[in-house]
């Protein structure tokens, strides 16, 4: 089992880097999803407010 440490280090680094990259993407995606939902809700509110204000004027 000579040089086992090198083999272990290589595979550990490969899986650690891939795992960290997946976590990085996943966290960024979660943050953007929250931002997207919040923005959609705000836009919906503003549009409803606009509709509410526009209706009395059109009568």
């Amino acid at each position: 089992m000579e040089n086992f440490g090198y083999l272990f280090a290589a595979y550990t680094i490969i899986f650690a880097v891939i795992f960290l990259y997946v976590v990085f993407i996943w966290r960024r995606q979660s943050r953007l999803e929250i931002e997207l939902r919040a923005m959609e809700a705000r836009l919906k509110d503003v549009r409803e407010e606009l509709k509410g204000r526009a209706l009395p004027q059109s009568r």
Partner: protein
Amino acid sequence: MNKRLNLSLGALTAVLMVAAIYMVFVYVPTEADQGIVQRIFYFHVPCAWVAFAAFGLVAICGIFYLWLGSEIWDDLGYAAAESGMVFCTLVLITGSIWAKPIWGTWWTWDSRLTTTLILWLLYGGYLMLRAMAEDTPQVARFAAVVGIVAAADVPVVVVSVRLWRTIHPAVLVTRQGGHGLEDPRMVATLLIAMAAFTALFVWLLTLRFATLRMRLRIATLARDLNLAHAAAGDL
């Protein structure tokens, strides 16, 4: 992005990766000259293959972006460059770890190592440009050009072991022709590992691409929100 597609790709990657790990550590025989450390090769080569494919995709996306001007190509190229950079980093690290017991040094300015390092630096520059500059069509055009020019180094890395004097092993296509993997189990292990890494790359690419598309959707919503606020102010 379709969640079912993401799950399917993730599951396929996991199955292939488990098979590859089993084959690398249990199935494949130990190489006579290098010993156990040669097993690094079964993940080192697929990492290189995926990095080259990713950088090739960046160049193709760059060409299509310059031609058609669609943001989809720009986002796909950006996602491919980032994933390619992860795998290129792994190529350099695992190669260095293999080199220490075999060559007696972590690094040498060999033609393949040097051209691979240049490739890593070129795409590092591409990603720095994307990260530091604003997200404008002009920056996307600059990035497309950088991505295309940088990809010219990929064939240089591939043929470097035949063009110049080098100590890097030419295993897949030896200098005498044919391949250097004499045992069919070694070939099978390498093929499964390559399939696993290809699936992993496609999965990471779709995940990252979806994130970039979501960013665009947020920018569009922000613009709509500003317009709606402006309209509310006018009433």
